[in-house]
């Protein structure tokens, strides 16, 4: 790792970090004040949710009883669809730029003209990416904490810690995949496209696995399967092995990226 490179990467991503984090915080904070009207209409909302086909609810990550608790409500409104999409865009944009953007913009020659190995240079960007992931997950958890205060509900510190771990593992997996794609792609767009394709496949796999008993095994190939924020907050059981595997996927993908980039022939 190289401190100068870490600082450079953080500076490159600072506006991306700032706007995505602030935007997400603002979005999350919309739902605390809404909880009381929603709770008072809980039975109507439950009926309304039941009217939807199971596939639609699964596709948008909406629990069977979205108004049963504030945790379920946040799962339905924030973490079911909008948060994962925003997080994927944010982390994939940053991660996919790690190598592919240097190639894309032609700065790879000057970037690699220093007496620091390629693996160390990329590892420094990975550390910076980890910093952005921690920040984004922390801001999201902070938003949820403020929402609970605004809604007058309570969750234990363990609940927040569990939420942080679930969000962090998801972001790690996305970041690792994006950097891995960046290490082999020729352009940033190509890297983001490949990473996006893989994540879209995982998303569809989770939806299909929830709809079809026959294809249930597909849930094992998706990082969306252990992404159960409502359960994390409420203290309900979570597939911790899945959370761990998501984080591990990110770490392994990052290590593969380091190996591939160290040996990559950089023909134009």
């Amino acid at each position, binding site marked *: 790792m*190289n*401190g*100068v*490179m870490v600082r*450079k990467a953080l500076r*490159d991503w600072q506006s991306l970090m700032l706007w995505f984090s602030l935007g997400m915080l603002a979005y999350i904070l919309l739902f605390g004040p809404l909880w009381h009207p929603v709770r008072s209409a809980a039975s109507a909302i439950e009926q309304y949710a039941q009217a939807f086909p199971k596939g639609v609810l699964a596709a948008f990550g909406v629990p069977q009883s979205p108004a049963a608790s504030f945790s379920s409500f946040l799962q339905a409104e924030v973490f079911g669809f909008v948060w994962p999409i925003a997080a994927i865009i944010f982390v994939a944009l940053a991660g996919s730029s790690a190598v592919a953007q240097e190639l894309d*913009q*032609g*700065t*790879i*020659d*000057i970037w*690699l*003209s*220093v*007496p*620091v*190995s*390629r693996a*160390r240079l990329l590892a420094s960007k990975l550390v910076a990416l980890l910093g952005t992931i921690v920040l984004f997950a922390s801001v999201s958890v902070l938003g949820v904490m403020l929402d609970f205060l605004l809604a007058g509900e309570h969750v234990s510190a363990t609940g927040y810690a569990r939420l942080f771990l679930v969000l962090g593992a998801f972001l790690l997996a996305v970041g690792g995949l994006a950097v891995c794609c960046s290490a082999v792609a020729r352009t940033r767009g190509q890297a983001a496209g490949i990473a996006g394709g893989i994540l879209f496949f995982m998303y569809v796999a989770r939806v299909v696995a929830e709809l079809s008993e026959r294809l249930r095994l597909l849930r094992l190939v998706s990082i969306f399967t252990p992404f159960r924020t409502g359960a994390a907050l409420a203290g309900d059981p979570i597939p911790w092995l899945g959370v761990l595997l998501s984080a591990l996927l990110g770490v392994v993908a990052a290590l593969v990226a380091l190996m591939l980039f160290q040996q990559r*022939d*950089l*023909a134009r």
Partner: protein
Amino acid sequence: MEQQRPLQTEVLTRFYGARRGVEDLTVTLEPGEIFGFLGPNGAGKTTTIRLLMGLLRPTRGKARIFGHDCWREAAAVKRYVGYVPGDIRLYDHLTGWQHIDLFAGLRGGVDRGRVRQLLDRFDYDPGPRVRTLSTGNRQKLVLILALMHDPPLLVLDEPTSGLDPVMQHVFVEVLREEQARGKTVFLSSHRLSEVDQLADRVGIIRDGRLLLVEPITTLRQRYARRMEVWLTAPITEAAFADLPGVQIIAIHDGGRHVELTNQGDVRALLGRLSQLPVRDFTYAPPDLESVFLAIYRDAEAAHPTEVQA
């Protein structure tokens, strides 16, 4: 002492699929020399340099810089090298200072005094963001980045493209001073005048193959020099027909103005001129351009450019 050679390649070869980038390039640079690497666009100069900088993996053969393998020990190699890429791309959102700080930080041990000296020398203001800079100013910044850590070897790919004539002159001066301080320079260029002024030896590359490596003085002597003669009375081609190495290029003004080239003994030619009604004459110094073109013509005649898949 073989290990300490600043730069050495052995049958260095790189193919892009079936297309040849460079093939069997063998060359050794001695400490303190400026080596001019000449060739037209697409001849393989940039491929060679990117192999030296560890950006490309050789198909076969080796390149070493101060004994370190350019591919396997690329990071170690960069300790010794100041590099100017052919295609200058910098971080547009950073200023010149930020570039200097970034690369000084990544390299370590950069003397700020030397940086200030280079800024003055190249008359470069590092304040503005790179996106606002002209091509010439970007080129100056890259030259400063390549020189600021005082490397023993400079690998320069078209280093003056974009520089105005004044700055080209400064660049030539700086390079001569670096050479006087014992630095070695691998200078790739298609600007023949620049190589002519600076290089001790020249390598000429064509279609990825090294045609020759020779001291520039030997190279000049090997090829014909151009002469123009003005006479008070007309002459014919027969006046020089028996002189070996003399070739008439053109006769103008009814035989009163003759253009010729001489590759033979200049004393025989001067003796003949003394017998003719010569009013004036010019005898051009051997310039690299005519040498280069002659070598290329000879090579083209011997092996017409191969069309590769």
